[in-house]
């Protein structure tokens, strides 16, 4: 059974000068344990689709189903807290919290006490290749690749089984990009996560189990 479904999703928004039909009838089912890549040219609607999947917005038409229930019928804050994790190109860490605090933060939102969160946080940081020497550092003291790994560790500490990544390697060099992708790939294949990555890098997209090609807001073969 699919974990996340886009059912005939349309998204129209009013820009400053025109009405934009950003997503046109996308119909697709995402399953756990698979690695998906959404590719397409700039402005084709990749990020819009991702934000709809993340529950940051609602489709104008159609619906996003998680566990069989539409995001429109769910508390979307709760959906983002429990069901999906988002990893962005710009890492989006809290600049004034240490690595450890950044990863702990979403656990606190779920009601876990800081002292109870420590073990899980350390496990996830180790899983993404960051040892204890990084724990007390602020994000600004890390490289781009390291920051992105912290962001992935933060995504992992939630119980969400869906990881949505928006150009996660956009600011990384080739070596770090491969490292991050292999990490995401491993999470999908070995730990059963449904990993959906938006990227414009076709070479990296080829590593995905399934590639969704977007053109002008619609899926193409």
């Amino acid at each position: 059974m699919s974990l996340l479904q886009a059912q005939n999703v349309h998204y129209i928004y009013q820009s400053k000068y025109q009405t934009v039909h950003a997503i046109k009838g996308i119909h697709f089912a995402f399953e756990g344990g698979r690695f998906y890549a959404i590719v397409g040219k700039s402005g084709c609607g990749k990020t819009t689709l991702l934000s709809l999947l993340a529950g940051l917005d609602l489709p104008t038409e159609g619906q996003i189903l998680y566990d069989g229930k539409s995001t429109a019928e769910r508390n979307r804050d709760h959906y983002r807290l429990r069901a999906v994790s988002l990893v962005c190109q710009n890492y989006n860490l809290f600049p004034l919290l240490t690595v450890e605090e950044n990863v702990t933060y979403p656990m606190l939102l779920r009601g876990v006490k800081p002292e109870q969160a420590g073990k899980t946080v350390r496990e996830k940081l180790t899983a993404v290749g960051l040892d204890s020497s990084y724990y007390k550092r602020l994000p600004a003291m890390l490289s781009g690749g390291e920051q992105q790994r912290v962001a992935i560790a933060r995504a992992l500490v939630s119980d969400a089984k869906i990881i949505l990544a928006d150009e996660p390697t956009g600011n990384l060099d080739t070596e770090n990009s491969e490292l991050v992708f292999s990490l995401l790939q491993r999470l999908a294949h070995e730990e059963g996560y449904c990993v959906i990555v938006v990227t414009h890098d076709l070479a990296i997209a080829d590593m995905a189990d399934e590639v969704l090609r977007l053109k002008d807001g619609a899926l193409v073969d």
Partner: protein
Amino acid sequence: MKSFPYIWRMALRRKGACLLVVLSTMAAAVFMLFYPSLIETVRTELEETYDGIPVTGSILTAGVDSAPAVSDSLWRELQSSGYFSELYASSHFGVRAFPKGILEAKAGAGASEQDRLTAFQTLLPRFEAEDSGGVGGPMMAYNTFQASDELVRVRDSIRWMDGYGESCLEGSERVCIVSESWGYRPGDTVPFLARVLVGRSLVEGIFRLKVAGTYPGKITEFASVMPLKTMEELTVAANTAQRQHGNYFAWTFGIYEVYFTVKDNRELDGIKTMMTERGLRGSDTVRVRIDDRILKETAGPIESNLAQLEGSYLFFFLTIAVLGAFISFLLARDRKPEYAVMRMLGESRLQITLKALLEQFVLCLAGVSLGAAAGHFMEVVRFDGVVCTMILLCYTLGAAVAVMLTVRVGVMDILRDKE
């Protein structure tokens, strides 16, 4: 709210921003705690002005032949009103009398009171004659010795009968103060003929007064002086006697001149209202003067100043709300990316707003506490819980508006455009 300690850590790591909030609210606290004492100083100055500047006035009969300015009932009302610290009143009617020498020449030395009265009645028809030696003029009545400037002027020269003094005018005994030139000594009894115009008729009657004191020389203002209450009783007695003789007329007792000092200047409006309602102000036959010009010229600017200060108090609280909104907006604007990440991680707008507000509240509380403590330590202000609470509320209210506006972020736009 379990994540608040982390929000708080982020806030504390923004030392400049924290310092800005703390110092601003600290300054606001010192100022707002000092402000009431400023108002109090001006209020005290106003009170001192009201208490320190005497306001006097008068109610006078306008015109020569006019009726008394103040009726007996109104006079009693003025006395019992409590509005006045000093109330001097005078009335008068015409009298005729004969010096003691002339009266004794007619009645014989050592004559009895009755013989003297008979001699007085005998002499009266010849009063108008040039060689009669009669004396006449207004019999003045005062409610107190101080009511007559002329008596006050000669007070040290007055010879008093034993047991009598200036206070005799405050009572209702049938006494008088006359000129030594009439020849009477303190303790003697003087017969008078009262001549009162009642309507168009001249009514006359004889009465006798005991000499309580004599003054040297002559005072042109009056022939003799008697207590005001005595005059009132004399009026009542005369009217009663006339009615017994079948004459129905009323010799109306009234006050021709009243001089007063206002007891509490704050009640000036009440006094003016009372005088207007009693028909004293705006009347053609009565002249009312209240000399409050100096008070008005002194207290007016202070009152205006006080009103401005009190009015500004509310304005300053609004300013604190605006300050809260402005500072919070500046701080929150820079934190939009943080709010976007919080939203991304599943926090609701309400949760973020409450955390941001709590953060601002705690910082403001610190600032206000420090301000109150600093002011108290420097002995420039007194702690006032209500003012401190108001500052906290106003600042937090302003901050709430700013935070609510800022938290409405376009999450995806910010997440993508961060760099």
